[in-house]
């Protein structure tokens, strides 16, 4: 499985999807000009990965900002990992947020409540 690495920009996050280790991370800000276009390679990669996933999959969100449209696409990525777990694979989501960022913590709590998957909320300094 190819590793998907996308460098960050002011409006887009650093992506590192490692199919060998199963550690998939999205870090930074997410408000791309065209969310559909931006997220298409990510969801395509996840679809391919789902056919032969690693022993354990960990999707890490470490986000400082995302807009309402990106929110929907991020949730879709999380649902794809939930779907893997529902098929019997091991997986979890880690939601990192700055310890003084209540908004990001609360949106993480929303995701956690909506997803049937192990979900760690992790405050970072």
């Amino acid at each position: 499985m190819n590793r998907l690495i996308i460098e960050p920009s002011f409006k887009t996050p650093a992506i590192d999807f490692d199919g060998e280790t199963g550690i998939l991370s999205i870090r930074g800000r997410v408000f791309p000009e065209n969310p559909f276009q931006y997220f298409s390679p990510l969801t395509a990669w996840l679809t391919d990965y789902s056919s032969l996933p690693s022993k354990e999959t960990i999707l890490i969100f470490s986000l400082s900002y995302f807009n309402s449209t990106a929110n929907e696409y991020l949730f879709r990525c999380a649902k794809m990992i939930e779907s893997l777990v529902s098929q019997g694979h091991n997986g979890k989501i880690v939601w990192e947020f700055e310890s003084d960022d209540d908004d990001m913590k609360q949106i993480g709590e929303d995701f956690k409540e909506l997803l049937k998957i192990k979900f760690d909320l992790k405050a970072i300094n």
Partner: protein
Amino acid sequence: MKEKSFQILLSKDDKRNDSQASEYLDNQTKNLGLPIASQRKIFRIGMELYQNLVSHRHPNHLGLLRITVDSSDKVRIVSINFCRKEKLDLAEKKFFSLRDSKDARINFMRKLVEKTDSNGKNQGDFGLDFCFRYSKEKYFKKFTRSNSPDIIYLAFSFPIDE
């Protein structure tokens, strides 16, 4: 604190793209010298309102996003938009529905699931829901519309230390 403010004025002559506007909003917000929590809130609410302005604005008319920190240490985020009537009707309906809903969080989560399940078909506006989620609805101060011309006025306000 002395009053400080900045604004983004959208007009037919405005050549600024989305990236330039967001960088301007980010830099100007930092220049206000507020606590980081306030900076985050201004940027998050400001970006949603800016994107609303861009998508709803009548192309030949003006749109304005203005951020002010007044002398009593309150932040005000205001957007004024000349927009198409049908957009204004939808925004008004959405605003009153959000304002009257008992729980912004439940409303936000339900909408998120609906949009995700529709797999891109439900392209309805999610920006106001997001603003309500971030602003815990109590900061949403005012929605006003006028007809002829069709104008939406939205205002958020919160103390700088909250």
